[in-house]
């Protein structure tokens, strides 16, 4: 069986998972490695829960089987819990310490777990929690949250930091290169500590 390094990125439509997945793909190209991915588009985008599969060195299908992901990057606490069964036992979890309640909680009166309950449940994996919103704001733009997350995860990704940084430079809007490079480095530094 081909062993790819499988990363599942999850969040809410509009949080920048597609750009983050493109950065990973570009970094693979820079290193001359194969990569496969799958994304949510169309109807599922509108503020819904989104997932992005990335298989570094993947040769076959784009889908990561549940229980097989080596790494999960989540932009939201609740989404981290929703997809946590995709992680393998020894898998690592990088989560933005932020919870957006779905509107179904208000319109259908559903009960959502609290932040503490979610974090407790996630702790059965190696968990790295970070305040990506704040770090992104510190780096210069709240929009760089996705790059902060990538930076924090970069220690666990089998790609060189230089390749990832080069991919960030190539893919983010020209005006924001500096902010995003800073965001990546801040994330990476934090990722190194919470390892």
């Amino acid at each position: 069986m081909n062993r790819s390094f499988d990363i599942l990125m999850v969040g809410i439509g509009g949080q920048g998972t597609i750009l983050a997945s493109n950065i990973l793909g570009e970094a693979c190209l820079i290193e001359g490695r194969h990569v496969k991915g799958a994304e949510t588009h169309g109807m599922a985008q509108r503020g819904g829960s989104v997932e992005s599969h990335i298989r570094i060195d993947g040769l076959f299908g784009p889908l990561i089987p549940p229980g097989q992901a080596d790494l999960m990057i989540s932009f939201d606490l609740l989404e981290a819990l929703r997809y946590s069964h995709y992680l393998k036992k020894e898998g690592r979890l990088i989560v933005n310490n932020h919870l957006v309640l779905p509107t179904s909680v208000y319109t259908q009166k559903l009960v959502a777990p609290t932040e503490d309950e979610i974090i407790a449940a996630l702790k059965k994996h190696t968990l790295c929690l970070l305040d990506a919103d704040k770090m992104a704001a510190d780096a210069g733009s709240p929009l760089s949250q996705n790059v902060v997350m990538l930076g924090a995860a970069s220690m666990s990704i089998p790609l060189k930091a230089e390749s990832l940084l080069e991919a960030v430079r190539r893919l983010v809007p020209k005006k924001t290169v500096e902010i995003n490079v800073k965001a990546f480095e801040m994330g990476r530094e934090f990722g190194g500590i919470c390892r």
Partner: protein
Amino acid sequence: MIRTHDLPVISRAHHRAMLRAQKIALIYPNYYSTRVFIGCESLGSVKKYSDRDMCRKITVLVRIRIMERKYLLGNEAIAHACIESGVDFVSGYPGTPSSEVIDVMRAQPEPSYYIEWSVNEKVALENALAAAWCGIRALCTMKHVGLNVAADPLMTSAYTGVIGGLVIMSADDPFAHSSQNEQDTRCYAKFARVPCLDPESVQEAHDMMPAAFRLSEEFGLPVIFRPTTRICHSKSDVALGEVVPSTRLGEFHKDPRQYVVIPAHTRILHKKLNEKQPAIKKRLVELGYNRFEIRGKTAVIASGIAASYVQELLPAGISFMKIGAYPIDEEWLGAFVGKHEKVLVIEELAPEVEEVVRQVAGCVPVFGKKNGYGSYEGELSPPAVAAILVKAGLLPANPFPSVDPVQNLPLRPPILCAGCLHRSAAYAIKKVFKDSIYPSDIGCYTLGLQMGVVDTTICMGASITVASGIAHSGDPRDILCTIGDSTFLHTGIQGLLNAVYNGANMTVVILDNRITAMTGHQPNPNTGLTACGVESPHVSLDVMCRACGVHFVESVDPFDITGMMHVLEQAKKRKGVKVIIAKQMCVISARRAGVKRGRYLVDTDACTGCGNCVRFGCPAIEFADEKAEINDLCSGCAVCVQICPVGAIVREGKR
């Protein structure tokens, strides 16, 4: 073509690798040109690999030498392949998962092809067919259900045939990720008797496109290209080919026996179509999209993306056949099946491959969905394929752990944006037309299901026709149907005309956001822009409805809840067909256009915590500490201001 003398032959293994590269060059000629030279330094570095590995290595080296590699979405790779094929004419109607192909192609600077978003798939296909009759290469894109709309020209275009290549991309959606059904386009190809290509990966989807155009020209037939969601919306590193701008000029040669399908002509054309079939089957095998490797006495036959899942899992000693093109050559298939004692067929949706395998299998036992090995519905995945392999005794145990997702988490379904016109229109409708019947249609507003204003959706345009059908069936309740502007122009007009003509009593609300929003903001005739951003004549929905014979046609601003409710009440009192056009820009287009309406906030002292505003369902309104709160998703539509019974919502900075 790679010339052997360009390559210093270091060993027999290198020579074999070279021959294999040449074979591949025959299949994918657009990848290789006479300029290709494989340097000896690159050969030296692969010595440590076994023969098989090296073949692959050298093939890759060849590709890197002459082409760009990019990480692309399947649809982006398909679009690029069409440009590489020198396509001249592109038409289509947006539909997930097919839309990005035209979106990528229309965004190219100075395209060498004509490109349009057509008003519906039938119109798109007829346009593309005419272009192909003029001898130029045409592409027509749509989603699988779009092919139903285009089925009329499809069936007969197989008779008339084409001169220039015509490729019809019809993207299937197993698991109905964003569709109303899971129909299988391969069945249409069989029905129409035209070739169908079914890629297993993004790279193959890219590589098939130039071949599809050549195939279409060789046999003078439209070719159906059928990727699925997991091809269109998956990503991969893709080796791209050279872009060759076309120099063809269309010219129509009159030939009534070919293009006028009166009975006397069509009988002959039908015979000709049938006579083409055996040669098509042979050519598809030669193209290499249907191929096999014999490794033992048991075989797995898989098609499309299922083939890539199978290859990830297949144990050694089991033969493998991949089907990527239809119709399948029965003789070739029978010879393969006959060499085995047991055959398992794995494919998504309809048992298209399995049926042919069963026809040729004779005494060889066949396992497939017809005898319980696999499902007719949904999409496959590596664990699902593993489960089939286990059941058929080809794998000892499922290599994937069975894991369960965390239960009882609140769902996060797709929702209407903050400041979406559909939400406020639905709110007003629900207030005035209580206990009514609400046929609806296909678009973002189908999400109005969550607000209780969507009772039916079948297919594009069916809101108005279902409404008139119910109106004539005797149910005494009021009927109000909703339809978007793009859907109205797609297939809604005929339904309206019919309802007026036959005297139905109903109200139609056209939700006019001037764009085809759901599929990614494609322009339509109501936008005033073409696919390439050129200004187009203004279409008046109002005048169009009046021309259909509707007397009550009113335009309203759905952000003005009171105003809209007033017009709804007037419509409710009247008999006949009434049309209300709710006009407001899509909030995403408004944001892109730089429209700033300011933001709103909750005066926490005034807020009584009644919850009316959060129940409205806008994602910009949250509830914390028994009070409403407006977050930064607010786009300033001010509808919640009108809903709040105590006036606690105010404009930011205007307290």
